């Protein structure tokens, strides 16, 4: 895939953002010419960007037409199972391999104060990415990265009903100090609880509010 093309790359970023924040809703039909006009890109760039998003499971391409991938309730479980395992692995590897620079980065992220729920989510995402990087395993980080978009969609779905989650910040601090101490099992444990808590909350909201009808 020609990801180095300037316009394709930018179009991909814009569309990724629109889909993961549900501005383009699940199931919505994607019209290439209309998107090109609206966003000011060539149709080729939009086409190529959408192909990349098909790869990310964010766009579906049946034999005819293109649309934003639907959200199924079963996705939630599939995604959470994978993330639960990979994130705990990342936490363990980070506790083993983190460099001094990694620790400074984690500490800075812990000290940052989010102004609202969206900022908190972004901060949480950065924190997880920093841990994936501190694991010093490129394949693990790449694999995890692909799930952020899918996770983010579920989270945005629940967003209007979510309370501010200060407990997330608390677990960041604990996780960060476990990694600093090189305590692998503790890091894994905190990460597992942190992820479980997140998905349980989302699951509950989605069920209670009947946000996805399967």
């Amino acid at each position: 895939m020609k990801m180095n093309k300037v316009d394709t790359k930018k179009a991909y970023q814009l569309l990724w953002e629109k889909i993961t924040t549900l501005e383009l809703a699940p199931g919505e039909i994607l019209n290439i010419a209309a998107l090109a006009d609206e966003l000011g890109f060539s149709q080729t760039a939009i086409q190529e960007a959408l192909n990349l998003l098909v790869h990310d499971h964010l766009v579906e391409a049946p034999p005819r037409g293109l649309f934003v991938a639907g959200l199924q309730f079963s996705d939630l479980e599939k995604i959470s199972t994978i993330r639960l395992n990979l994130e705990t692995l990342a936490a363990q590897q980070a506790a083993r391999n983190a460099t001094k620079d990694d620790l400074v980065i984690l500490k800075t992220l812990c000290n940052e104060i989010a102004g609202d729920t969206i900022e908190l989510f972004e901060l949480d995402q950065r924190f997880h990415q920093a841990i994936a990087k501190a694991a010093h395993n490129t394949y693990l980080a790449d694999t995890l990265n692909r799930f952020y978009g899918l996770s983010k969609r579920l989270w945005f779905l629940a967003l209007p009903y979510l309370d501010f989650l200060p407990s997330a910040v608390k677990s960041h601090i604990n996780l960060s100090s476990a990694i600093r101490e090189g305590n692998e099992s503790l890091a894994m444990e905190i990460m597992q609880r942190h992820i479980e808590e997140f998905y349980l909350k989302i699951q509950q909201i989605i069920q209670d509010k009947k946000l996805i009808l399967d």
Partner: protein
Amino acid sequence: MNKKNPPETLVLGIDAGGTYTDGVLLEYNTHQIIATHKSLTTKRDFSIGIENVIKGIELEDPSAIQMVSISTTLATNAIAEGKGKRVALFLIGYDPDLINSFDMGKRFATPHYYYIDGGHDLHGQEKAHLDLPDLLDKTNTIKNKVDAIAVSSYFSPRNPEHEIRAQNAIASICGLPIVLGHQLSTALGSVERATTAALNASLLAVLQEFIIAVRRAMEHRGINAPLMVVRGDGTLMNDEFAARSPVETIHSGPAASAIGGRFLSGEDQALVLDVGGTTTDLALIKDGKVTISETGASVSDYQTSVKAANLFSIGLGGDSHITLDRDNKISIGPERVVPLAFLSLQYKNVQERLKALANQSWPPPYPRELEYWYLQREIPEQNNFTAGEREAIDILKTGPKPAIEVLKSLGFLDTSQVNLGNLWREEVIGKSGFTPTDILHVDGRHTPWDEEASKAAISVFSHYLKWDEDQFQLIFWENVTEIISKAVIHFLTEKEIPTRKDTNNELANWLMDNSFRPEHEQLATRIALKIPIIGIGAPAQVMLDAVARTFYTDLVLPPHYSVANAAGAVAGSVMVTEEILIYPHLSAGNVDVIGYYLQARDNRKEIEDLEAALTEAKKIAEDNALSAALRSGANNPEVIVEVIQDGMDSYRVKAQAVGKPRLEG
């Protein structure tokens, strides 16, 4: 069909200059020009002018175009007009006292610069630990106030470790684009490197948007071909490279002009003078190549370490504003305005008003009454115009008005009292006035527009000065010739031209005067050019003829000289330069050489023996240059490797890969 003819290879060259955007459709192998197009540059959005050229060029099957290449003053303009994005610059290991004592802070091209502990020394050894917590704290305070981040660490070309660690950390806490100094320049000047990084960061989004718009315009006309951008030294890079190092496009316009002049004329030794609407640019062709500046490109007083053609530019062009100064001397430029002949063609009442002014006996007409303001586009719906600005718009809604009339209606006497900044910046209102182009309309040498308006204007000027019109023209053209001739001498000698007031330079002044206007009865002096002048740009013939005569040389006007700049955009080669630094690894206390470091971009390697290090470096440099040239669109690039001694026991291994652009199809 004649089968002997090779298939046509069509390429489209575009030059987006300060006034006009020119396009040339060219057969690549025969250099034959098939179509040309000229449209006005829209400074608030350069891609509009380019879209017009792509739309306007005459060709039945645009899909046959195999390459589009663009030179543009977009970057230069964005810097000069402060339209670049906001940048935070981190200076790692720089000495604040030193920077302050030489007042160098202004040179960084951004007010948001921060000092961070760290950096390396000449030998690539860590001078101080990188203070990462401080760097991240500062990033957090500034990240919502800027659009990009630049990092330059002390001696980073010798050892970029701190820049790389900084990038890694900053990218973990915010999503802003990050530019590193060592990736743009291997030169050791730390201030220039920081400036280059900051300017590059400020231009990233500007060039990205531009490329996206051009690609879209190409698609609208069914052109599916590689897109190239001209560098400041006239070589080409593909759009992907350009989007990453936009700072390299500074001066790409004048460089393309020089190359186009050489390409169309075939002259291998020549002085190129490109007369545009706003400026006249000078460049030198030596042995078939454009000469390169020893120091890096500079723009708006910022000195960068980017390679660029050796250029000199003066604010005198076909659309320069002609006014009178306080001593009633004719002043030309540097401001560019729309010629009255052009304005009058579009608004009929302008001609009537100008004629009435010329015939008015009392009060006598003033030359400053010739400056007109007009609305040049629709009023943007979203705006933050002041009350005064909105009033000015209302006044101009009924058509162009003399500036002094607008000022009077607003209750002001002078332009300096009124602030209509938004209207000028967003090109809502435009300025028209008396220009060299108008004088060409009067003498009939170049009359595409309304010569009646120009005639009225020259009559106002001549009456006011109590000259007849022929005398006015004669003196005017003498002035133009003198300004350009002095620029030629300054450019070629790099010496300051003495001003008239400088009485210490009596002889120099006399020599100069007597050479331009022979006056002495016994002594004849002449300053002769040993090479011809290549003239480029629409007014070149008229404005340069006398200049060539002054220098006792020929004026060469290549075919299609008015759009040679656009031809130059496709005439360049694709070039990539890779440099590897080799310098000694010293033992503790800098006593013995215990090996050699080989610094290739982000990778560093230690080799004990110097010969082995040089051999290895040559190989890596050659491989890197070759693959980078292929990636940036070169066809069969050739690589030349050279080793340059760079101070004590240090070497710079330079590989330059050059090839013609690879065409689609």
